[in-house]
C-alpha cells in the first residue's frame, strides 16, 4: 500500500481548510470595511470575493512525467523515475484568487458627511452585511467538514499502523 495515498487525502483536506480560512479573511475584511468611504484608489471600498476553481495539484508531477521520457534506463540497476500520484489526475483541489466586486456602490443620503457629493449622497461600499454573515456561516461549516475529513484520514492511517 502506498503511504502517500492517505497522506495526500489529508493534503486535499488541508487545501479545503486553507480555502475556507481565506474566505473567512475576505469576509472579515468586508464586514470591517462595511462603512469605509475612502480608499487608496479613491471611491468607497469595494466588496472582495474569492474566485475559486478546482485544479489538479499534480501539475508538477505532469512536468516530471514529461521529463521522465527523456530518462533512459540503460542498466537494470538504474532506478525507475515513476511518480506514483499520476494516476489520480481526476482529483482536484480548490485554488482561490481574491477579486473585487465592481457593482455600483450603495448611495446613502447624508449631506453632513464629509464625503457627500453635491446632492448630499454618500457612496457607501457595495456590501450587504446579511450576505456576508450567511457566507461566514457557510465558510465556517465547510471548514468543520474538512476538519472531520482530516480526522477520518488520521483514524484510517492509525488503523493501518495497527495491522
Amino acid at each position: 500500500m502506498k503511504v502517500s495515498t492517505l497522506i495526500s487525502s489529508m493534503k486535499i483536506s488541508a487545501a479545503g481548510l486553507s480555502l475556507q480560512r481565506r474566505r473567512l479573511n475576505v469576509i472579515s475584511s468586508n464586514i470591517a470595511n462595511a462603512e469605509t468611504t475612502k480608499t487608496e484608489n479613491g471611491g468607497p471600498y469595494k466588496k472582495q470575493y474569492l474566485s475559486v476553481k478546482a485544479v489538479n495539484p499534480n501539475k508538477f508531477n505532469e512536468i516530471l512525467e514529461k521529463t521522465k521520457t527523456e530518462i533512459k534506463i540503460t542498466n537494470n540497476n538504474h532506478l525507475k523515475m515513476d511518480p506514483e500520484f499520476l494516476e489520480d489526475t481526476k482529483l482536484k483541489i480548490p485554488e482561490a484568487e481574491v477579486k473585487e466586486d465592481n457593482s455600483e456602490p450603495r448611495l446613502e443620503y447624508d449631506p453632513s458627511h464629509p464625503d457627500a457629493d453635491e446632492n448630499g449622497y454618500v457612496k457607501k461600499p457595495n456590501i450587504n452585511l446579511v450576505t456576508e454573515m450567511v457566507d461566514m456561516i457557510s465558510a465556517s461549516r465547510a471548514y468543520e467538514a474538512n476538519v472531520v475529513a482530516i480526522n477520518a484520514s488520521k483514524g484510517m492511517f492509525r488503523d493501518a499502523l495497527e495491522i
Partner: protein
Amino acid sequence: MINLFNKTRIPNLEKVLEAYSLRQKAIASNIANATTPGYKKVEVSFEDQLSSEMNSLRLKGTQTNEKHLSIGAKSISEAKPEIVESKTNKEDEYKSGYNNVDIDEEMALLAQNQLQYRMATRLISRAFKGIQSAIRGQAQ
C-alpha cells in the same frame, strides 16, 4: 511469485484497503471543493467491478499454463480501483448552487469508508494471527 500469503485472503484485503484509501482521497476532494463553482464530484469504482466479476464467474476459463489468456471474469487482484467522475450529472444540481456535491452524502460516505477501512485492517491482522498460530502449531 510463490508467497506464504498468496493462498490467504490477505492479497484481496490489501486490494480492498487500496480501494478504500483511494476513496478517502476522492471524498476529501469532494469536501474540499464543496464550495467550488462548477466542480464535478468524483467517485471510486471498485465494488461494481467486483460484482460484474461475480456475475460472470461461471464463464471463467481455466488456466493450466501461465501463457493462457484469461477468459471471462477477472480475479479480484485484477480489479483496479480508479477515480471516475460521478455520472449523476443532473442539470438541477448545478442550478441549485455551486456544483453537484451533496455535503450530507459525502459526510456519510466518509464515515462509512472509515469504518470499512477499519474492518479490512482488522480482518488482515486476524488473518496474520491465524497464520501465526498455524506456524506455532498450537493454540495461543
